[in-house]
Structure formats: structure tokens, C-alpha cells
């Protein structure tokens, strides 16, 4: 079919040469005489040709000089849908021409035909039935024997399919160009036979070259920075070697990151990929793509810098850091982490499971707590690790003590810190031992002092009795007795300091009314206050202030505070005692005097042992232990004692106690608070001691 069609097509084209003859045959219709005469002269061969013209598959149309149709063949009728009778007398343009034809082509055709010259071009026509189709139009003018223009003959080839294919190709090329531009991907191809390099528009844009510039392979290499050029040359050399060694050509596949110059000198990075294309005879073309990855590389480099910075920071910190992924596999840790867990160092590698790492350590005896019970220990440690909200203390085989803080990130990663608290633990232990030894020492000394005091106090007591009336002796025994009593108060105070260690365990707490306890002490000290014409003012009516207290010890505190106030308040003044129920915040008891007050700088130090305020250090009989003991007692209650100087004058002492615990849980919480306070105090004491040393 194809061959036949091609043949006819070829024949049709060949027939162009016969156009003159055909014009004579077909167009001179009015001259019947001539036609008859010609017909008589027609040989069978001409008749055959005329039939061919009529039946050829290409459309043929003949017009007169006024460009009105005088003859059409069968193919024209099929193509346009107009019968010969309908077409005759019509203008082909008006009958068929469609608006889509390029206006320039239309103008060129009109000029050619007006001048009686041939025209070749592509036009868009519409058939009778509305089909739009492309034609390749070849129009030749026809001349009579005198050389005058007698008409035109047009050969029409339907090229719709080709035009559509071309449009599709243009469309896909445009799409390719657009996507290449958007994606920053340029294409290139190198023909191995012709050594021609072909670039896509995007490649020209990347290289900042004019699209008409024809690059050679050497031009392409000249666009590479030296290092990238070496990469390519090495790859080419390898490919050539492979080819010589008859290595499977399928292996040929390039994927490099290259640094290039554009024509204007801009330096940029591309990912260059290439493949080899084959025909039956072997490789014919190298086809590749260039993707601009400059921005991506800069982002990656920036990211890398950030990661390096972060890792550097983590490596620099003195604490061990570790990160596990949501599957509990090690992502990263710093050197300090490996150093701490030296026994299991070889197991601490990225990708290793947390469980495997700790099990390795446990089996090697790294954790003294795991010895003899590895499985149980690992299970417990794993549970705490998964919970990731606890702070643990871990002892290691090398004697180090670590505080472990583990937290879970929102995406499931677990961050761990190990703080080496060995020195802190040692210092705390030492401080505790020292404190214990100090308490024991004080207790021993106190007891040892009590025995001689027995003689001093006892004999002086007997002496002052027997010397009654003998003035010098009575006074001497009285002085010895008072001295003995003062020494006893000191010894008892020392004993209290060592006994009340600031924790709740040292007290027997019971629910009690703090205001009533205060009133009892005020009553007891009434005579002492009266000696100095002081008024002890209690609130009226007395509030009820419930708290969990050791009544004996709390009264000891109140007695101490009140006695101080009585000692230092100016004669005839008032000492105000107030009580407040702060509901959830507990209760407070305040004692306010109008004495000399305490300088701001001494407000805290007066609670230290053997310290008295500079304004009251007058040998007024205090042991210097009263406020120290009071503070210990208040802390052991989970409460506090604070001194302040109100705006005008005097001293305000505030005793605070937590609210009475309703449940065992609350009691436990309070107990914890007391322990913490005690620890803080111990820490501050040890700091003081260190500072002193």
C-alpha cells in the first residue's frame, strides 16, 4: 500500500512537468473544436495520463486566470467534500481557506498569484464537512500559446498528520525546555560519529551561551574547573579502556558533581549524568543531563557547618552526651561519654542498640550494681531509659559516680547526659562524715563537761546555802553557781546543736496549736518581762494555728526568740506576738520588738553558731547558740525562721511552719522537703568550710 501510495505521490510530483499539457486538456473547455481536434490527435498514452491525473491520490485543482475553479480531480472531491460541479466557478481560497493559516503565507500566495508566479506553501483548509486539515500547496501558473496567463493548477497534499506530529514534537520540546528550566536540568548529546555536541536550551542558559553557538567537546571541557576537568578526562580514559577491554557497555554510566564556569565566569556546581546510546552497530551517542546543584551544595555545606558546630560544641562540653534514635540505636556520642564507659568502649559505636551496649558493660562488671544480676539490672536500666524522664545516679567500676539525665524528644529520639558527680559525692560523703564526727565529738565533750559541772553547780549550791548571811562567801558561791549554770546552758545548747540535725526524724511531730504553745511560753516569761516593764502583746482573741509540731522543741524556739526580745527591748516597750493562718502555705508566728534591731548585713549570720549581733554583743548572757538551734528545729519541722528589720526600728522574727499534713502522702512530701532543706544546708555549710579553709 505504502509503496503504491508513494509511487503515486512521486508520480503526482512528476506530473508537475505535464502541467502545461493538462492545462490545455482540461482548461480550454470553451473551445470544443479544438478539444475535438485534440482528442482526435490523442494517443492512447495521453488518455492514460489524463486518467492518472484524474485518479491520482493527490488533490489537483485547476483555475482560470480569474482564479475560479475550472477542474478538480477525484482526490480533491474526497479531500474537500465538494463535488466537481459544486466546486466549479468558486474561488478556491474562499471555498476552502481557514483562518488558521499564517497571514504571511496568505499574503505571499496572493502576491505570487497576482504576479502570475508559482507558489509553494502550507495552508490550513476546511472541508465541506468542517474538517480542518493542513495542505502542502504547489501552485503553478498556466500560460496559453501566446504566453498569456490562462490560469493556475494547484497540487494539494494533505500534510495534517505531519503537522500534528510536528506540533506534538514542538509541544514536547517546549515542555522539556520548560521543565529543564524549572528543574535547572540541561540536556546534552554528543554524536560519536559526527563528533557534534548538542545542547538543550537550558544547557545554553546554564552556560550563559548564545543558543546559536555550536560547542565542541573541547569547548565543553574548557567550561570545567581544573579538578572537574580531570574527573571527566579520567572518566573518558576509563571508558576508552573499558571499550578496548570489551567490558560490557551497559556499565557505562556517569554521575559526577562538577564545578563549571559559565561564559561570563560565574562558577557553579552541576550534577552531570550521562549514558551511552547504542545502535545495532554499536555505541552512537552519549546523552546526558546537567543539573545545577549550586544552591543545594551550599545548603548542604551550611547544614554540614551547623552539624560540625553543634558536634564541636557537644565535644567541648565537659559532660558526656549521647543520642539514641527511636529504635534505641546510638546516633552520636561525644568522647567524654566513651571515656566514662571505658570498659564497654568498643560496644559504643553508632548503630549499636542501647540494650546491647549496657549489657556488654554489665557483663564486664562495669556497673557494680549489676554484678551477679545482669538480666535484672539490664531490665531495670532499660525501663528507666525508655521512660526517659528520670534522673538516675550510677556508680561505675572505675569509682566514678554519674548523674544520668535522659529525656525523650518529640520525634522519639532520646537524649542523654552524664554528669560526673564523683567529686560532689565524695565531698558530700566527707562532709557527712565530718558532720557526724563533729556531732559525736560535741556529744562526748558535753557529757564530759557535765560531770565537773555537777561539782561546780552542786557545791556552789550547797555553799551559798551554808554561807547565807556571810556576805563575801555567799556572793562568791552565788557567782560560782551562776557561772556553772551559764556553762551548763552552753553545754546543753551544744548538745542540742549536735542532736537536732535539721531532719524531721530527730523530732516527734504531733498536731498542735502553735498560737496556744506561744501563749504558754509568753505566760512563762511574763515575770521576766515584768522585771523590765515590758508588755508581751498576744492577739485577742488568740487564733487557732494548727501544725504538725514537736511541742517541746517549738516552745524552745519561741522561748529563745521571746527571751531575746525581752533582753534587748527598751524598758517599758511592747513586744508584739502575731499569728497567721496562711491556709495552704501553713502558719506563721511573728515576734516584733522595738530594740536596737539587727544590721542588714548580719540578718543571716545571726543564725550561725556563736554569732551574736554586733548591737547586742554585750555579755548579756546568751550562749550564741539559741538562734542556731532554733533554725535547726524549724528546719526539722519543714519550716523556717527568718529575721528582718521593719522600717522604723527593732527586729521582726518570723517562724513559718507548713500546714498540718492530712495524709501520709503529704507527710512524706514534707519529710522530703525537710531532707532537701537539710541537704542544702549541709551543702552551704560545706561550701563555707571550704571557703574558710
Amino acid at each position: 500500500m505504502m509503496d503504491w501510495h508513494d509511487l503515486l505521490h512521486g508520480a503526482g510530483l512528476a506530473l508537475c512537468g505535464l502541467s502545461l499539457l493538462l492545462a490545455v486538456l482540461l482548461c480550454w473547455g470553451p473551445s470544443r473544436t479544438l478539444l475535438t481536434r485534440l482528442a482526435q490527435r490523442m494517443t492512447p498514452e495521453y488518455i492514460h495520463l489524463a486518467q492518472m491525473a484524474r485518479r491520482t491520490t493527490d488533490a489537483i485543482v485547476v483555475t482560470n486566470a480569474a482564479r475560479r475553479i475550472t477542474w478538480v480531480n477525484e482526490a480533491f472531491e474526497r479531500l474537500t467534500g465538494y463535488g466537481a460541479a459544486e466546486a466549479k466557478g468558486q474561488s478556491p481560497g474562499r471555498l476552502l481557506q481557514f483562518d488558521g493559516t499564517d497571514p504571511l503565507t496568505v499574503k505571499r500566495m496572493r502576491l505570487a498569484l497576482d504576479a502570475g508566479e508559482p507558489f509553494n506553501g502550507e495552508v490550513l483548509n476546511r472541508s465541506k464537512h468542517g474538517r480542518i486539515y493542513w495542505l502542502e500547496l504547489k501552485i503553478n501558473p498556466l500560460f496559453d500559446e501566446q504566453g498569456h496567463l490562462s490560469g493556475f493548477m494547484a497540487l494539494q497534499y494533505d500534510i495534517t498528520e505531519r503537522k500534528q506530529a510536528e506540533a506534538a514534537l514542538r509541544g514536547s520540546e517546549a515542555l522539556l525546555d520548560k521543565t529543564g528550566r524549572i528543574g535547572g536540568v540541561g540536556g546534552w548529546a554528543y554524536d560519536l560519529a559526527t563528533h557534534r555536541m548538542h545542547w538543550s536550551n537550558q544547557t545554553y542558559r546554564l552556560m550563559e551561551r548564545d543558543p546559536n553557538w555550536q560547542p565542541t567537546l573541547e569547548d565543553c571541557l574548557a567550561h570545567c574547573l581544573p579538578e572537574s576537568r580531570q574527573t571527566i578526562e579520567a572518566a573518558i580514559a576509563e571508558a576508552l579502556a573499558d571499550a578496548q577491554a570489551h567490558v560490557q557497555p551497559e556499565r557505562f554510566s556517569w554521575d559526577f558533581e562538577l564545578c563549571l564556569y559559565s561564559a561570563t565566569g560565574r562558577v557553579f556546581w552541576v550534577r552531570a549524568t550521562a549514558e551511552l546510546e547504542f545502535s545495532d552497530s554499536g555505541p552512537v551517542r552519549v546523552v546526558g543531563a546537567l543539573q545545577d546543584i549550586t544552591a543545594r551544595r551550599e545548603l548542604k555545606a551550611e547544614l554540614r557547618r551547623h552539624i560540625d558546630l553543634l558536634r564541636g560544641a557537644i565535644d567541648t562540653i565537659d559532660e558526656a552526651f549521647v543520642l539514641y534514635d527511636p529504635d534505641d540505636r546510638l546516633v552520636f556520642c561525644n568522647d567524654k561519654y566513651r571515656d566514662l564507659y571505658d570498659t564497654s568502649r568498643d560496644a559504643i559505636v553508632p548503630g549499636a542498640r542501647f540494650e546491647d551496649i549496657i549489657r556488654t558493660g554489665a557483663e564486664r562488671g562495669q556497673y557494680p550494681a549489676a554484678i551477679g544480676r545482669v538480666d535484672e539490672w539490664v531490665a531495670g536500666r532499660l525501663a528507666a531509659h525508655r521512660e526517659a524522664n528520670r534522673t538516675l545516679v550510677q556508680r561505675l567500676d572505675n569509682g566514678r559516680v554519674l548523674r544520668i539525665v535522659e529525656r525523650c524528644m518529640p520525634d522519639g529520639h532520646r537524649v542523654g547526659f552524664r554528669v560526673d558527680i564523683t567529686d560532689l559525692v565524695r565531698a558530700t560523703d566527707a562532709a557527712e562524715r565530718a558532720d557526724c564526727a563533729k556531732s559525736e565529738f560535741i556529744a562526748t565533750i558535753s557529757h564530759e563537761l557535765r560531770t565537773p559541772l555537777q561539782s561546780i553547780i552542786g557545791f556552789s549550791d550547797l555553799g551559798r546555802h551554808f554561807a547565807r548571811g556571810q556576805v563575801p562567801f555567799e556572793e562568791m558561791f552565788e557567782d560560782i553557781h551562776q557561772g556553772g549554770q551559764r556553762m551548763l546552758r552552753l553545754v546543753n545548747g551544744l548538745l542540742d546543736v549536735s542532736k537536732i540535725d535539721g531532719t524531721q526524724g530527730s523530732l516527734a511531730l504531733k498536731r498542735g496549736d502553735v498560737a496556744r504553745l506561744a501563749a504558754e511560753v509568753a505566760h512563762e516569761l511574763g515575770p521576766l518581762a515584768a522585771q523590765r516593764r515590758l508588755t508581751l502583746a498576744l492577739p485577742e482573741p488568740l487564733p487557732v494555728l494548727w501544725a504538725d509540731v514537736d511541742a517541746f522543741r517549738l516552745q524552745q524556739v519561741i522561748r529563745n526568740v521571746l527571751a531575746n526580745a525581752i533582753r534587748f527591748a527598751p524598758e517599758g516597750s511592747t513586744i508584739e506576738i502575731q499569728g497567721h493562718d496562711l491556709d495552704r502555705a501553713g502558719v506563721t508566728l511573728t515576734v516584733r520588738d522595738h530594740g536596737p534591731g539587727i544590721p542588714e548585713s548580719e540578718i543571716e549570720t545571726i543564725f550561725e553558731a556563736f554569732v551574736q549581733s554586733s548591737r547586742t554583743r554585750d555579755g548579756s548572757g546568751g550562749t550564741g547558740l539559741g538562734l542556731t538551734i532554733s533554725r535547726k528545729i524549724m528546719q526539722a519541722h519543714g519550716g523556717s525562721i527568718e529575721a528582718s528589720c521593719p522600717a522604723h526600728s527593732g527586729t521582726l522574727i518570723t517562724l513559718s511552719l507548713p500546714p498540718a499534713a492530712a495524709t501520709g502522702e503529704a507527710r512524706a512530701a514534707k519529710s522530703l522537703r525537710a531532707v532537701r532543706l537539710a541537704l542544702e544546708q549541709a551543702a552551704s555549710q560545706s561550701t563555707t568550710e571550704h571557703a574558710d579553709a
Partner: protein
Amino acid sequence: MTPTVLTIEDQDDIRRLIRMTLEFKGFRVLEAENGTHGLAMARSEKPDLILLDVMMPGIDGLEVGRTLAADSALSRIPTVMLSALGAGTDVDAGMATGVRAYLIKPFSPWELLDLVTELTAPAH
């Protein structure tokens, strides 16, 4: 009849203080400077009251107290323990031996005198 008080105490000055205090009110005072001697005197003299120091070399006061309590012939003699150890636990340990009272040093001579008078009164 004058009540007899036995003081078992290793310190001379304390023994003297006790003797002066008690003799002042007419008590007959016997003295032992250690636990062994004190127990022997308690058995031989059958005092009306024993004042017993806790911290003594050799047999200490607690041991003496327990021995007195275990001896049917001596267990009826009221005993007062004297000690510089004043903590609750110390007092409890002392009282647990069966003594009648526990006096913490330094005590007042008048306080001792009142206690001894009370414990040796005919009603006792």
C-alpha cells in the same frame, strides 16, 4: 531510824557532794567507788536506798542495776540512777534495768535531797 544510802560512784568529788548533801539532812551515807564494791556493800549492808552512777570503769551502772534487780534480796531496795547521759534513749535504757528514778547530772543537791527523802519515807 536514820535511813542508810549507798552511793556507788567512781568520782570522789561527786561522792563527797552527795555525802555532804545527804548528811546535812541526817542520812547515813555509805560509799563504793566501783560496781563490784558497790554490789558487795549492797549485799552486806542492805541500805535503804542506792544511788548508782552509770559510767564507771569495770562493771557499769546498767550492769549493777540489772544485777540488783535480779537479786531477790536486793531488788526491793529503791535505786536512783545518776548519769550525765540525758538523752531519751539513755534514760529509757537506765529505767529498763528496774531503777526507781533517773537523775541527770548536773542535778541540784536540793532536788536529790527531795528525791531521797521521798523514796526512803516510811510509806515506801
